């Protein structure tokens, strides 16, 4: 099934940012997924979808090199997982910051730039050191890019979920990564904010040639912005354009069960009949 998808993405002629060949992962003695083939084109905006517990975050962590594969091969930016970590902007599944945290958003973004360097900046180094000045400029630039300039100097604990998420995206972007891996960045955001963040990520991926892979729970708020989806279910995965993948036929094959995809009059997709955690997944759009 995935051969057709792989060849279609290679037909685009673009370089491949993330490739998986027959990949499988065992976690806690359980085979999470196997025989996963992916070919994510460079510069595309991809959502990783699927029911709870299917191993979406595990896929991200495998791409980071923090979880080893059982079989198969992963290539990230042309290298094995973990070898390209300086070119990856990673945003883990997030808890928000504690409300009382008295650290400014701008400092959080700055840590993304050089927080892993030893030592401690001394007073007023931005006035004398060219590198410190360039760093401050880069931080301001990336905060401007995500539209967080008006609140970046306020303590991050007091910001709203959407504001925090924009600053965290700025943090992940600040080192000019070629690939961004975002684990449920839209979780706990309201619908307008989910759409706004997705639009921002799509713009970044288009204008800066950054490949963006984002784990998402609900495809509908982000559907208009996506280039491709990776759908994990039934122990394997399908990759392709949203209209190719989110169909009754493809998902039925993936789940080995009868799945229906209904399209509402305003273009939202409702997946019906998922064997695992179906309620949690579809209840959100039913309620709207």
């Amino acid at each position, binding site marked *: 099934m995935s051969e057709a998808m792989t060849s279609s993405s290679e037909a685009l002629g673009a370089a491949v940012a993330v490739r998986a060949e027959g990949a499988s992962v065992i976690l806690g003695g359980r085979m999470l997924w196997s025989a996963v083939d992916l070919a994510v084109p460079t510069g595309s905006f991809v959502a990783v979808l699927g029911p709870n517990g299917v191993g979406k975050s595990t896929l991200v962590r495998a791409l*980071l090199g*923090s979880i080893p594969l059982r079989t198969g091969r992963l290539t990230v930016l042309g290298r094995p997982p973990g070898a390209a*970590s300086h070119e990856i902007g*990673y*945003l*883990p599944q*997030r808890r928000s*910051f*504690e409300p009382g*945290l*008295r*650290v*400014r958003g701008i*400092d*959080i973004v700055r*840590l*993304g730039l*050089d*927080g*892993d*360097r*030893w*030592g*401690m*900046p*001394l*007073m*007023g*180094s*931005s*006035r004398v*050191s060219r590198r*410190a000045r360039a760093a*401050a400029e880069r931080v301001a630039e990336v905060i401007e890019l995500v539209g967080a300039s008006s609140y970046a*100097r*306020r*303590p991050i604990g*007091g910001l709203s979920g959407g504001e925090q998420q924009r600053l*965290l995206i700025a*943090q*992940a972007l600040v080192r000019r990564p070629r690939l961004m891996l975002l684990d449920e960045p839209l979780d706990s955001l309201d619908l307008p904010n989910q759409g706004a963040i997705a639009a921002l990520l799509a713009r970044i991926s288009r204008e800066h040639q950054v490949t963006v892979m984002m784990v998402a729970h609900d495809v509908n708020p982000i559907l208009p912005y996506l280039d491709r989806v990776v759908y994990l279910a039934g122990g394997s995965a399908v990759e392709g354009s949203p209209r190719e993948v989110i169909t009754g036929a493809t998902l039925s094959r993936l789940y080995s069960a009868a799945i229906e995809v209904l399209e509402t009059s305003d273009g939202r997709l409702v997946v019906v009949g998922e064997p695992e955690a179906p309620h949690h997944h579809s209840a959100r759009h039913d309620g709207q």
Partner: protein
Amino acid sequence: MSPHLGWNPARDASQLLTYHFMLNALCAGTIVAVMAGVIGWWMVLRRQSFVGHTLAVVGFPGASGAVWLGLSATWGYFGFCVAAATVIAGLPGRPAMGGFSEESSVIGTVQALALASGFLFASLYGGFLNGTTALLFGSFLGVTNGQVWALLAVAVAALGALVAIGRPLLFASVDPYVAEARGVPVRALSFAFVILLGLAAAEASQITGTLLVFALLVMPAAAAQQLTVRLARSLWLSVVIAVLVTWLGLGVAYFSKYPAGFYITTFGFAAYLLAAASRMIAARSGRWGNVMPRTAASLPTAASRP
């Protein structure tokens, strides 16, 4: 001649410095205040006050045991605090900040035992109750030259280590998951910080006593973090407040019959109250409450963020 506070500040200052013991107390107090101001700032940021308090309490049996065995209390404080820090830092916990909450009952148990055994050692020494009070609530009498040098050496080493790990420690403290993904050794840094905290608790205990360490470890840092959200500025502010509070406390105690621990704590509390009040006023006049209050801007810190 008994010291008498007059209206002439120069005469008061020369009275303060007449006696060698007072000079030593001021030197020791300054060293301890700088160290506690810096490490306490990190402790407050990392939400590890409970760990800091536990380490200080464990210093009490260390000090009283050392006195009982005829050794210097200084070595008892350092030995026990660092040993306890090693044990606590090795406890399994979340790599995230404040990772010791699950063990709070264990730590509470250890605190009670530490206080009880400290009291036993003090009784074994001969029921020298005044000594027990000094260990628990602080004393600035009888600080020896050797003690001052030991405090200075430990403070320089600890602050040097902190400068070396400062930036990744900040990353690991406020954003542990991303820091870990970036290759920051989050667990090792957490371990190192608890050891530094043990050293700071041992130092502060020697001026404020075991039970009042928070006067120097928490109050200045908490006040500074109320006054500004700029990291470097609040760190320097924390040191300035700790040093001022210590000098004022020791100075007033010299001219008064009441203990230094009380004065240092009271001035620390006053600093915190002022800081919290000025933040509230700023929150009311400004729109958000994180606007830098004018009172803080005029303090002589000359700090600026890189």
